[in-house]
């Protein structure tokens, strides 16, 4: 493996600006590594040629001093539910086969303007519905640490590609943990920023009130650099927030003295794997050693977060996915008799089982006679969950929790019991319901050698605190520097 593959995105960016490495060399190295790691099945589409052309053009601009951003020329991968003009965007679903959006997502435009080089589209659970990247129409992605295990999901391709050194960073999306959980399973760092800080324009919606894009990368500093590039108000997204640029990267001091780290007891109870528990709590000790204070309290809404999340997410999904009907884009079934048959055939054959399950569930909770009992109830409980977070952040600056109850399960273990799979989202979904920033970072390995992730949750717009705490932890530990690729080589 080439040495540059082990650099962080920021290190590579610096080397490119110094002229030590060219974007074309970096792109070639990544493309070779992707080829080498083909069995991971992390990508749904590769754009090798355009990536090399773009790297060439970006390289010239960097040399001319026209592009100076920290990540200019650094190759990345983009999750397949983010619209890229003229490049296949399928949400890993049969129903969007061949869809090439006529426009770029705002985030893609922003990255382009700063000299990003996209290698292709990353595998995911179909329409981001799943926790394993096994529901992809393009087949499952494999965890680079153990090919027999899942990479997590739904941004499994993104997490696996970053872990396998196939790209320096990736853009994922997170509706109920889809950045954080695969980051944890694959031993990389990922952050879902505050709802509204990154424009959703061009992100194919799963659950509009919960969806948010964010980076998966080697460490917190890389994540900060990506967020600096993509955050900001977008006139095309009415839900995007008007927040001044804060300079997340420049704010990474590692100084956590006096910072209050909250440990919600309800997140460390039954159902949590003891090895995971131990590693996550050890994060507190590291931060404490750097001057942070630890605060323990109860967080009494944990048993309600999963049902609330699945009601709201499924309801919105049932509506958002109605537009996939074989008329305007994507795949259309053959042999239909009339319009209704065209709709039903296309959707029945075009969607996978998990997507259909959530569409039916969402249709049910919105249907006449059940709206109040389920959907409206869930919106009320969402209010209570938000309140619980507000109370918690009255007592602490950040919350520390696990990302998932276990490390990555084996491929084929999860899908047979959907409800059990939903329950494993317990630590991540509440963050989306409350719109808060949540970061996942490597904090250890279990006895099988699989990475363990810890989650830091901040108050709304608390990205700087979250990233700084993670950075502080990463200054004193090297879990984030471990690589499955090196492990294999040894």
């Amino acid at each position, binding site marked *: 493996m080439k040495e540059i593959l082990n650099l962080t995105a920021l290190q590579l960016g610096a080397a490119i600006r110094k002229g030590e490495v060219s974007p074309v060399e970096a792109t070639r190295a990544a493309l070779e590594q992707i080829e080498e790691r083909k069995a991971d099945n992390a990508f749904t589409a590769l754009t090798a040629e355009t990536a090399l052309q773009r790297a060439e053009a970006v390289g010239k601009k960097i040399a001319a001093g026209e592009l100076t951003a920290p990540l200019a020329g650094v190759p990345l991968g983009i999750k397949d539910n983010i619209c890229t003009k003229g490049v296949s965007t399928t949400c890993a679903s049969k129903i969007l086969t061949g869809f090439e959006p006529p426009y770029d997502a705002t985030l893609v435009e922003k990255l382009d303007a700063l000299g990003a080089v996209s290698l292709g589209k990353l595998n995911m659970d179909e329409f981001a519905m799943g926790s394993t990247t096994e529901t992809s129409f393009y087949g499952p992605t494999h965890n680079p640490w153990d090919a027999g295990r899942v990479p997590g999901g739904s941004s499994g391709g993104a997490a696996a590609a970053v872990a396998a050194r196939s790209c320096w960073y990736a853009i994922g999306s997170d509706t109920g943990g889809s950045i954080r959980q695969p980051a944890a399973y694959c031993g990389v760092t990922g952050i879902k920023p505050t709802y*509204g800080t990154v424009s959703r324009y061009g992100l194919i919606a799963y659950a509009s009130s919960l969806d948010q894009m964010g980076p998966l990368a080697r460490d917190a500093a890389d994540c900060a650099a990506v967020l600096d590039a993509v955050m900001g108000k977008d006139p095309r997204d009415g839900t995007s927030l008007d927040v001044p640029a804060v300079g997340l990267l420049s704010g990474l001091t590692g100084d956590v003295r006096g910072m209050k780290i909250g440990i919600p007891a309800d997140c460390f109870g039954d159902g949590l794997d003891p090895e995971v528990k131990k590693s996550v709590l050890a994060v507190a000790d590291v931060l404490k050693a750097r001057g942070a204070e630890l605060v323990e309290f109860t967080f009494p809404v944990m048993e309600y977060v999963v049902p609330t999340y699945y009601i709201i997410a499924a309801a919105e999904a049932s509506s958002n996915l109605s537009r996939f009907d074989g008329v*305007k884009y994507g795949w259309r079934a053959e042999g239909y008799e009339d319009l209704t048959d065209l709709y039903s055939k296309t959707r029945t054959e075009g969607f996978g*089982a998990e997507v259909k399950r959530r569409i039916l569930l969402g249709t049910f909770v919105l249907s006449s006679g059940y709206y109040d009992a389920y959907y409206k109830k869930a919106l*009320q409980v969402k209010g209570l969950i938000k309140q619980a977070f507000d109370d918690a952040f009255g007592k602490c600056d950040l919350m520390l929790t696990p990302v998932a109850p276990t490390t990555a399960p084996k491929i084929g273990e999860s899908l047979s019991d959907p409800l059990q799979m939903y329950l494993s989202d317990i630590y991540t979904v509440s963050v989306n319901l409350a719109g808060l920033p949540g970061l996942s970072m490597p904090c250890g390995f279990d006895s099988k050698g699989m990475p363990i992730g810890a989650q830091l949750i901040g108050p709304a717009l608390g990205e700087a605190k979250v990233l700084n705490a993670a950075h502080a932890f990463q200054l004193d530990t090297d879990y984030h520097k471990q690589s499955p690729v090196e492990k294999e080589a040894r």
Partner: protein
Amino acid sequence: MKITTEMVDYISVLSRLKLPQEEKEQMTGELERIIGYMDTLNALDTGGVEPMSHVFPVKNVLREDQVVPSFDRAELLKNAPKADEEAFLVPKTVE
């Protein structure tokens, strides 16, 4: 909450999905378990709690009434499974 195959039929029609018999029976069971689990929310007293559809108090996000040239039609139609040079095509729906 008991979920019947009739209920699954009803929501299937609403969502334009047509499950084969065997799948439908399995789905009915799965949905019953999932919806049964959602019933845990009933334990919470939410009387007087306002339903929260938007998590942040953002409001009045409006744009000016200024025309921007429309998109190239060919670009809008190029992804359609069936279209002619000016429109998306579907089986007969109107006389």
